[in-house]
């Protein structure tokens, strides 16, 4: 009976967030199959830890589990690339021209935006996905990724600034880079 009650409560409080769980896992792992594996694993973990969820927000709680499962998965399957390397790469990129007319030219093409977001280091990508695509508040993001509010704020700020920089350089900027002889 206890287990049955737990199942019903779980289906009501946690299962409705399956789409969000998958979306986050997909953005973090970068692959459909891996995302489904991660979510499956995360749901089993969530179910066995469900007793510990008291009055907390079920969605942020589930996303925290999905996120930790994804990160464990990424560490096991891939060498996480260094944040320092990315920062260097961003510094190498020319800062968008201060000319106001050119600064407006940021690409909003779906594929370009997707590619740009995939380039961001995990900490920044997850903050932006949770905020812009999932629509979480700073407080919910802070609960889901277990960092203070100030950190959420600064990751979003830097993440967006980088995205803007990447997208102001496309498509001409990248094409130019790619075309350059080695």
């Amino acid at each position, binding site marked *: 009976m206890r287990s049955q009650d737990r199942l*019903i409560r779980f289906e009501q409080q946690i299962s409705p967030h399956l*789409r969000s769980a998958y979306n986050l896992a997909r953005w973090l792992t970068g692959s459909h199959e891996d995302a489904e594996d991660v979510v499956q694993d995360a749901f089993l973990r969530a179910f066995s830890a469900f007793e510990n969820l008291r009055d907390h927000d079920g969605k942020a709680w589930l996303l925290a589990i999905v996120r930790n499962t994804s990160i464990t998965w990424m560490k096991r399957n891939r060498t996480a690339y260094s944040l320092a390397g990315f920062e260097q790469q961003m510094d190498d990129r020319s800062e968008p021209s201060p000319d*106001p007319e050119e600064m407006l030219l940021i690409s909003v093409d779906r594929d370009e935006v997707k590619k740009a977001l995939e380039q961001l280091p995990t900490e920044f990508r997850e903050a932006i996905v949770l905020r812009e695509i999932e629509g979480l508040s700073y407080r919910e993001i802070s609960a889901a990724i277990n960092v203070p509010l100030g950190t959420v704020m600064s990751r979003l700020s830097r993440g*967006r600034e980088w995205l803007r920089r990447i997208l102001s350089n496309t498509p001409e900027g990248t094409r130019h880079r790619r075309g350059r002889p080695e």
Partner: protein
Amino acid sequence: MNCQDLRMYLSAYLDDELDIAESLRLEKHIAECRACRQTQEAQFALRSALRNPDLYFEPSPGFASRIASIVNSEAKKIARQESPWYDRFLLPSFRWASAVAAMAIIVTAGTLVILNNVRSSHEQLVASAALTGHIRSLQPGHLVDVPSSDRHTVKPWFQGKLDFAPPVPDLSELGWVLIGGRLDYIDGHTAAAVIYQRRMHNINVFLWPHHGPSDDHIQPEDAQGYQILHWNGSDMTYWVVSDLNREELMDFARALRGH
């Protein structure tokens, strides 16, 4: 506030997470600084690009029911671990004589009770799986895979997806409107879900082949404001779930059973 600060605070400002004093300082700077105004506009454009629904990844269609069935079998596993039936009888204060006498009774009468409990607790799990299947189907976009009020559309849709042909009777003359069909996964079976409606109340009929003896006595049960009806037809087992009141749902079940 200078341009450097603005870059730091702009993002929180766009998210409405900046306090009023900072917001006012930021607005004042933006009003005076053309470059920062352009940065703000670029961030606006970026935001609407990120909110493109195309960037929201969707799992594959059967994924939700796959996860539900995995969680469900996990629940069964835990249920088995949680309920050692003999616990109740291991009272330390039992005296030997009465213990022996009691054991004799328990062993004979108890066997029947236990067998009976195993069966009903299994049915309880199926009932709760049917209920959660119903609740899940009420999530936006989950109710039907084939939306149609025409049984000649719904019935063939199941062909090739199931190894049995679920009956999809037309009950519209009795006031039960067919809404469509869906595949679901209940108690280790791929189940056909046929959805009917009355006055905006959705009714999920879950069915799959049944090989045991038929028992078409309809067993009603209510759980959390929902009615769950169950019977075993001659070749299919039926679970009907709805938030409709019991009398009307029983009428529905009788109409369905009569076909």
